[in-house]
């Protein structure tokens, strides 16, 4: 704990740790010192000169963003001299600024506007000719308007330090200085849009959002990204029921300011022309539109008929549907279809990890732990491609806390650049090479992918210090939740053993079942159905849906409430963003079927199912207040051995890149537009 330093800011006495910058010390007593270039967590710049403050005994104004507190320092942040300096800076900034606020995307949420409103002059004394430079498009999603740029260099820093990409730089000098992309006239990068998000003005704008609306005409729904398993909060900006923009508006999620290309742009599948809006029923050889009533009646009758004659069901769930839906689906299958033939596509061996951690409570790492740990071991995953938030956390940890990073993977990857040691080998064999070093790491977080599964997981835990914390990397937004909710043939919710194990996914797709029911998955990609009757709940007519007897149009995660559990086992709440006409949530569809079959009187509500989960699923008794306010709650794990029955299922990651997202990604035109074909791939 550093010693405390006492100082006075605007007459308020305050004690802060030595080394604190005046700009942050002021914040603690509710004094906002304005700044454009200062951005917490990034290198100091002191370029915008907006944060100049008066310090007693200093001969001139000093920048609060670079000034560490000193004992008995007396700071004044709102003197006439300070106000004049700020006004002067704004006058300089606005001199060459085009003042095209009426048509600028940033209008209404622009820091330059806000600052001018607070400190600026109402009139311009600049009567010279402004320097005009044509707007440039750097990628399908990034546009740059130099005249609006105030050269705060936030974009350059976030790209370099935050993303580890360094795709932006500065060319020319003086008033002709320009931010420039890495490939001359275009960008080759993650297309994460962090540069756009961090831009305080309208210099960097989004190709997806530009000229679509004014910010005050939108409503905002903070929800959880539907793509990878990291669980970033993305705020959907909705106008007239349509999503116009995704960003992380208030930095309130576990991802702070971070979002990748998927969290920011890949919501356009919602309005994809191939989106299903009406149930489909097979008549003869063709799938034809049908009413909900007809389709539900048909499926319910079939379910009842097969159940009564003791026929075989197979149920395949999803890694993208909510916990409430997954819980309800397994309950439906086990209670009303009398089957344990239930599974989903598994991408990481969470079960083996939880089993291996029996007797080691508190050994799962949270997203925050990845940022705070003294060391991070990454095994068998291309983190920057598959887990962009965790990758961001690792880089931030290295920058802010000097964490030691160890990479064990046969192929080069971005984390190599910040690694203390890289081992070009696979799995345990690779870890063996640095075992002694790892043994000395008392605060170690281990992120492991598909290279370590089955019995290797226990060996891994035995090799590493007992204080190590783990994340078993999985693919999609609710991959972890699907496991926790018991979408497994041999395990009930909370990893309780099922009385008699059912068929696994691999077995189900090959078996001649009487009914195969697929909720939000595409297991029949590249293979023909073997079962008698196929029911599919889907957004699109996927390879699986195309073979179905009945297809229910399902709502996407952005169109429903509920919860997801991310790769680190943190539960977060989904908030419904856009309006949806036609499709229903999977929970609603299952509810309709249950009612038709005579099991439910009223449709289940996500809130009620969540209550049931909290009460009955081990580890999910999370504080309700935390959940409803949109914060993340870490779940507990059983902390006891998990009884596996039967052979363990093949676990295989889909190895999505930043620009792919399984079947769903095919319907994200933005992802496909920015995807640098063949340049990016995740190697086994």
């Amino acid at each position, binding site marked *: 704990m550093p010693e405390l330093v006492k100082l006075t800011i605007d007459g308020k006495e305050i004690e802060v740790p030595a080394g604190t910058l005046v700009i942050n010390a002021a914040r603690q007593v509710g004094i906002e010192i304005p700044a454009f270039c200062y951005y917490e967590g990034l290198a*100091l710049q*002191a*370029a*915008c*000169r907006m944060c*100049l403050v008066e310090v007693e005994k200093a001969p*001139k*104004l000093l920048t609060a963003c*670079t000034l560490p507190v000193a004992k008995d320092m007396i700071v004044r942040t709102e003197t006439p001299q300070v106000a*004049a*300096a700020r006004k*002067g*800076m704004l*006058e*300089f*900034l606005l*001199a*060459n600024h085009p003042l095209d606020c009426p048509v600028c995307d940033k209008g209404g949420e622009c820091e330059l506007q806000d600052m001018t409103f607070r400190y600026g002059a109402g009139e311009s*004394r*600049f009567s*010279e*000719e402004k*320097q005009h430079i044509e707007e440039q498009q750097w990628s399908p999603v990034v546009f740059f308007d130099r005249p609006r740029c*105030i*050269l705060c260099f936030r974009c350059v820093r976030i790209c370099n330090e935050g993303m580890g990409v360094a795709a932006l730089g*500065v060319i*020319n*000098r*003086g*008033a*002709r*200085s320009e931010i420039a992309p890495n490939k001359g006239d275009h960008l080759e990068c993650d297309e994460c849009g962090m540069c756009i998000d961090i831009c305080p003005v309208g210099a960097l704008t989004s190709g997806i959002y530009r000229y679509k609306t004014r910010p005050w005409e939108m409503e905002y729904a903070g929800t959880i990204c539907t793509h990878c398993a990291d669980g970033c909060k993305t705020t959907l900006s909705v106008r007239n029921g349509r999503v116009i923009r995704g960003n992380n508006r208030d930095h309130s999620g576990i991802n702070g300011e971070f979002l990748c290309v998927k969290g920011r742009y890949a919501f356009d599948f919602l309005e994809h022309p191939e989106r299903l809006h009406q149930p489909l029923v097979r008549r003869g050889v063709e799938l034809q539109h049908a009413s909900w009533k007809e389709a539900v009646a048909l499926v319910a009758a079939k379910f009842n008929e097969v159940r009564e004659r003791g026929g075989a069901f197979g149920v395949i769930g999803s890694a993208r549907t909510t916990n409430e839906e997954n819980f309800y689906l397994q309950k439906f299958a086990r209670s009303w279809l009398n089957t344990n033939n239930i599974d989903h596509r598994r991408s990481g061996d969470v079960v083996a990890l939880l089993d291996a951690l029996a007797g080691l409570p508190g050994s799962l790492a949270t997203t925050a732990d990845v940022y705070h740990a003294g060391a991070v071991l990454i095994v068998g995953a291309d983190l920057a491609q598959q887990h962009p938030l965790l990758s961001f956390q690792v880089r931030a940890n290295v920058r802010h806390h000097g964490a030691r990073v160890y990479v064990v993977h046969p192929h080069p990857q971005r984390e190599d650049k910040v690694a203390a040691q890289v081992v070009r080998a696979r799995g345990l064999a690779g870890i063996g090479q640095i075992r002694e070093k790892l043994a000395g790491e008392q605060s170690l977080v281990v992120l492991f992918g598909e290279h370590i599964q089955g019995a290797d997981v226990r060996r891994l835990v035995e090799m590493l210090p007992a204080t190590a914390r783990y994340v078993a990397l999985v693919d999609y937004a609710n991959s972890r939740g699907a496991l926790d909710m018991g979408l497994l043939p041999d395990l009930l919710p909370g990893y309780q053993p099922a009385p008699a194990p059912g068929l696994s996914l691999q077995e189900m797709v090959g078996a001649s079942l009487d009914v195969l029911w697929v909720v939000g998955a595409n297991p029949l990609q590249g293979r023909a159905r073997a079962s008698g009757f196929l029911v599919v709940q889907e957004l699109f007519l996927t390879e699986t849906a195309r073979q179905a007897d009945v297809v229910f149009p399902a709502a996407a995660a952005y169109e429903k409430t509920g919860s997801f559990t991310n790769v680190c086992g943190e539960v977060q709440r989904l908030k419904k963003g856009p309006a949806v006409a036609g499709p229903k949530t999977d929970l609603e569809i299952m509810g309709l079927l249950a009612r038709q079959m005579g099991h439910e009187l009223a449709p289940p509500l996500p809130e009620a199912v969540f209550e049931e989960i909290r009460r009955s699923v081990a580890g999910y008794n999370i504080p309700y207040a935390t959940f409803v306010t949109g914060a993340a709650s870490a779940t507990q794990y059983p902390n006891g051995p998990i009884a596996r029955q039967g052979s363990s299922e093949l676990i295989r990651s889909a190895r999505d890149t930043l620009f792919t997202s399984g079947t769903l990604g095919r319907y994200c035109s933005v992802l496909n537009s920015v995807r640098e074909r063949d340049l990016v791939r995740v190697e086994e």
Partner: protein
Amino acid sequence: MYNAPHPLEVRILTRRFGLPNSASIDTYLAHDGYKAIEKALAEMTPDKIIEEVKASALRGRGGAGFPAGLKWSFVPRQSPKPKYIVVNADESEPGTCKDRLLMENDPHQLIEGALIAARAVDAHAGYIYVRGEYRYLIDILDRAIGEAYQRGYLGKNILGSGFDFDLHTHSGAGAYECGEESALLESLEGKRGIPRIRPPFPAVVGAFGCPTVLNNVETFCSVPWIILNGGAAYANLGTRKNGGTRLFCLSGHINRPGVYELPMGFPLPRMIEEVGGGVWKGRKLKAVIPGGSSCPVLKAEETNLPMDFDSLQAAGSMLGSGGVVIIDEDTCMVKAALRIMRFYAHESCGWCIPCREGTMWLGKLLTRFHAGAGTMSDIDLIRELAQNMLGKTFCPLGDAAALPTISIVKKFREEFEEHLNGRKCPHEGKG
């Protein structure tokens, strides 16, 4: 190239100028060359060297005038990191051309000065960062460095003392900003030449994150004489707190422009009249820029001053880099202000708002004003904009642009008024 010496000069640093083959090591050795490093290695502890430099009252010749001995003493004695010597040879201040002569005519004096500094702070590598436009000097320096290696004055085990020192030249790429010490270090490290946030200062965190002694060419060149003759002897050449001699670069409207080595505190009127032979073409003196273009101008009646750091500061200007620019009565001061501003607008690195935008705006405004399209309120605007830059920029470049502008508007306001109402510049064509 070297102008004819003047009898009033006190030739310490320039004493070998004009000798045949003055840049060669043989000439250097024949005239006290490398005696100082011999003495320093054989007879002096590193602390003693620093004490001697402190006693000499030698102040940084780059412009800021910071006491050199004090600067050296800030370098940590014990450091787990290597230490570096960096010679600032990025001489770019308009009106200044002395370092160039020192390197051209007597490169070994600079090498020896850097070597002594290295011994004082226990550095084993150094760089001479040479202004991009001075590329031809790199050949001269490299030749001299080669000779010094050959004769054992550089490299391993110098003069059998066990002390090692390597010296390298490094070319700038033509940016005035890189004369600012922290921008120079960035550039030396291969990055964009923009200044660093300070503290920490280079003595603690300098080149490649290591403790670094960074001084101007002339500062290093003064050191061998100080070591040979003692700090006190050097100090006595000048005035109190302003030790030694200074290379003054007389330019502008003067009869005998050139670089003259004169004692610190030499009276400015005598410099103009006796050393420089007076204002050219029999014209009257209007103003003097006393220390390079970044200094506030002095009106003719303010020039009765001794040329040392403290006297110039007291008079509201600066001794700066020693570039003394003489301005005659037929010069348009609006145009002078414009010319200076154009330079700084061109050279602003673009890092901070007030310098980047201020120099651009003032450049455009002064251009329009000089062309006769100015208004009365523009005169105040020019001053206010410069005032808004002053003291608020990231590095001193903003001040360098603001100070002369403010002084010209303040002292020559009537000349601005003469340009109003579309009137043609009254000095146009007087040449």
